[in-house]
């Protein structure tokens, strides 16, 4: 029997607000344990939450980007469970009435575009972290993260393969990062994903028994975890077994999943409206304000790049994956109006250099003006493309302008025919064996003479001219 998988994702995204969701503590990462805390996020007796309006702004922004209906009135609810990283032993979340519902995202797949439904987007607060001592049987609690605002984005069970799920997850992340409301870092946990997965015989409507997958902290692991789980379900059903509804943990070291808790052990969170927070009103003015603040989103930008700049879809997708990169491209093209050349350079030299640099493009030592200048110098023949790469490396290393580097290092391209003819004559004279082999028909040796010429001019020779002169000079020797 052929099965198809049914996958829905629950994504938690940490919002990039300066202060926590319900108190004024900083959300700064990496401070000493428990230093970013106050009576409110510590859940001290008598303390009360007050919503950070920035968190609501960001949630509305994401809801609009996901084509959601925004509820004029939503409610905060308490999710009750005991855990030492949760000081109040309840999490302020939303349950029956989330901020936004009924949205969708168009996701690009190899097979075409697919629309994935978004069930809801709601706000909640993050929990702290437990640090387990490896030597002693004690655990420590760090509450710096407690109360950091999160949004949970719940999808419809619209994905059919692990690749689709990964593609949806990538577009979600891309949008969040575009909006500047989440840093999208999966390894550090500011972008987290749980998956619900089941399988059913292809063509059947009814859903199979699902399992919930947790602990997949990279795109690769989401895909691997889902693939494993789909395979596991398929084997069980093929062997005539039944799926147990349960929560399973992905183990990255083995690439498999293990049972965490069964349905019977599932928590009863005893949700009820949080009496400390009034019903949350989203005024139409706020929605309008956020609509105005909405930047161009990745897909729209990609389509515009294809249309306006005439670059291939692949280039456009790569360039629009991150907002600063797209901006860099546009800024460069605005000065140097050869989009394909700019795209080539950004996708190769530039991205290679920018890789492994944490701060990314924002603090890139090469700015669009200098890149445009460099490309201009290549185009007008001042330097060769090859020298251009050297200059670029120097630009990246020193932050200097390309014309300064070219002048200081004397890298201006040699395009003087008589000078190049002299150099070439000497090379031909110095390599009689190669010349005779060439004349005997081994024409591939032309590359050898080009190389020799470039070396003799320390790469500054205009390669096109060198080719032309070499052909002429060697032809002369034929007779």
């Amino acid at each position, binding site marked *: 029997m052929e099965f198809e998988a049914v996958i829905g994702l629950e994504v938690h995204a940490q919002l990039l607000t300066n202060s926590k969701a319900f108190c004024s503590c900083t959300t700064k990462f990496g401070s000493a344990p428990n230093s970013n805390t106050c009576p409110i996020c510590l859940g001290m007796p008598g303390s009360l939450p*007050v919503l950070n309006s920035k968190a609501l702004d960001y949630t509305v922004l994401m809801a609009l980007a996901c084509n959601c209906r925004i509820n004029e009135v939503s409610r905060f609810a308490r999710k009750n469970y005991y855990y030492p990283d949760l000081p*109040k032993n309840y999490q302020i979340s939303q349950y029956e009435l989330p901020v936004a519902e009924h949205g969708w995202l168009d996701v690009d797949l190899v097979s075409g575009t697919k629309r994935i439904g978004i069930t809801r987007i709601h706000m909640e607060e993050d929990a702290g972290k437990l640090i387990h001592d490896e030597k002693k049987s004690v655990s420590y609690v760090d509450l710096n993260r407690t109360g950091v605002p999160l949004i949970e984005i719940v999808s419809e069970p619209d994905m059919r393969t692990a690749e689709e799920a990964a593609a949806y997850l990538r577009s979600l992340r891309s949008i969040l990062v575009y909006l500047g409301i989440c840093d999208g870092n999966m390894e550090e946990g500011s972008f987290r994903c749980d998956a619900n997965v089941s399988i059913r015989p292809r063509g059947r409507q009814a859903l199979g028994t699902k399992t919930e997958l947790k602990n997949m902290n990279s795109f690769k692991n989401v895909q691997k975890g889902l693939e494993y789980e789909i395979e596991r379900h398929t084997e069980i059903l093929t062997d005539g077994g039944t799926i147990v509804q349960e929560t399973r943990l992905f183990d990255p070291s083995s690439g498999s999943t293990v049972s965490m808790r069964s349905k019977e052990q599932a928590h009863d969170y005893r949700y009820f409206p949080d009496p*400390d927070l009034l019903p949350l009103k989203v005024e139409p003015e706020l929605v309008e304000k956020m609509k105005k603040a909405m930047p161009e989103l990745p897909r729209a930008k990609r389509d515009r790049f294809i249309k306006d700049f005439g670059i291939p879809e692949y280039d456009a997708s790569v360039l629009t994956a991150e907002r600063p990169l797209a901006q860099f491209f546009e800024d460069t093209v605005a000065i140097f109006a050869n989009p394909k050349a700019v795209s080539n350079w950004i996708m190769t030299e530039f991205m290679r250099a920018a890789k492994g640099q944490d701060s990314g493009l924002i603090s890139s030592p090469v700015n669009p003006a200098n890149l445009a200048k460099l490309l201009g110098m290549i185009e007008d023949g001042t330097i060769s493309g090859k020298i251009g790469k050297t200059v670029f490396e120097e630009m990246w290393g020193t932050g200097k302008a390309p014309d300064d580097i070219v002048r200081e290092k004397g890298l201006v391209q040699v395009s003087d025919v008589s000078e190049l003819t002299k150099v070439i004559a000497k090379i031909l004279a110095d390599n009689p064996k190669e010349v005779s082999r060439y004349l005997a028909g081994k024409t591939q040796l032309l590359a050898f003479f080009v190389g020799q010429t470039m070396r003799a001019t320390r790469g500054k020779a205009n390669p096109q001219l060198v080719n032309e002169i070499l052909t002429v000079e060697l032809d002369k020797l034929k007779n």
Partner: protein
Amino acid sequence: MPNLHEKSAAELAGLLRDKKISAVEITKSALERINTLEPTLHSFVNVYPDLAVTMAEQADRMIQDGSARPLTGIPIAIKDNMCLKSRKTTCGSKILANFTPPYDATVVNLIKNEGMVILGSANMDEFAMGSSTETSCWGPTKNPWDTERIPGGSSGGSAAAVASCQATVALGSDTGGSIRLPASFCGVTGMKPTYGAVSRFGLVAYASSLDQIGPFARDIKDIALMLNLLCKHDPMDSTSVPVQRSDFSTFLDKKPSGMTLGVPVEFFNKLSNQDVERSLTEARKVFEKLGVKFVELSLPSLDYGIAAYYVIAPCEASSNLARYDGVKYGHRAENFDGMIDMYCRTRAEGFGPEVKRRIMLGTYALSWCYYDAYYLKAAKIRTLITQDFKKAFEGCDGIFCPVAPAPAFKIGEKIDDPIQMYLTDVFTIPVNMAGLPGISCPAGFSSDGLPIGMQIIASHFQESKLVQLVSAFQRETDHHLKHPAI
């Protein structure tokens, strides 16, 4: 000056202004009174003579340099569930017996800025759950009128302290009658303001949607002064309502003639105590003489008030009290085996039986299969009660009714019968359910000399009407001027 402790805040403020006495003298007189009476009454969990004298000295400096405010130098007791920075705030519970808050409640801040003098923390039912102050882990407070009886609860310590002149005024909190009931049983005036009128920030929560802080005093003038201090919008409390507040003192001398009081038939049908009936009838006559009209009205949904309250309040409490787990502060069990066992033992040891009862009730009622049947239904009843009141206030300025079915009962009389204990609050609970302001004012005495209070309820943010009505009543009567012979 003799009998300094018996003077009202308004009188003391006058003497301080005229420099006839100092705040330190007043404070020392209060501390002496506390010393004398505490072994008998046990109104306080902690008395802070050092803090009180320091605050009194500060008050005297404010008076000297002309920065005194209306209540500067007045001694106050605060209920043991309001956070007082660097001093113990125990909520009458073993689980918080060693808890010292690192911050002040908003009301404590207001008191400090006013230059009032905090004498100590007043005894209360554990986590404000009770009607008698018997569930305090520190033992019960005695009623100053009869020390074999309870003072009412849960703010019994605050009421007893004011009634016995240990403190001039006090703060209590009222979730289902916890200010009005002890005010009635102890013969003092006590008001629960509109929900959202006084900040709850720093008030250790029992049932967040019902809790409200309010004042105790020996007359309405002092209540008005306290309301002026307390009723302020607080951005730290999302449920605090930003409304324009009037000067409540300006309503003290307004004549009530032409005002209308509603009499809910359901309430009076329930009355079986002759003393309460007689006191209420006499009080009604006083108002009628003042030109106040009475109309009968019906509040049919109020019959379900107690049932709905004992779903909503425990539900919220079960969640509010979840934080007491031994991990961060408060009591932690000494011997345990693993994390879950630590939670269980800590809470088993730290909470008393009434608190446990309500946590279990609430946990059950919120559980997945029962949520609709209990919490949701109770929330609907709450809406109906609110609508009943709203309709009633279309035809009257206030609702006139008893505070409690009978005067103060004996210590131990109801502690083993929770249902009987809960029924004590039958007339006060609906007011919290609807978030309305309600006042308890001395209206007479039982044949055996126990105080009996009347309750007047007003529409949202109409505390000024309560001040106006009770002020007129207290000008005509002397129940509030009587002191217990202690």
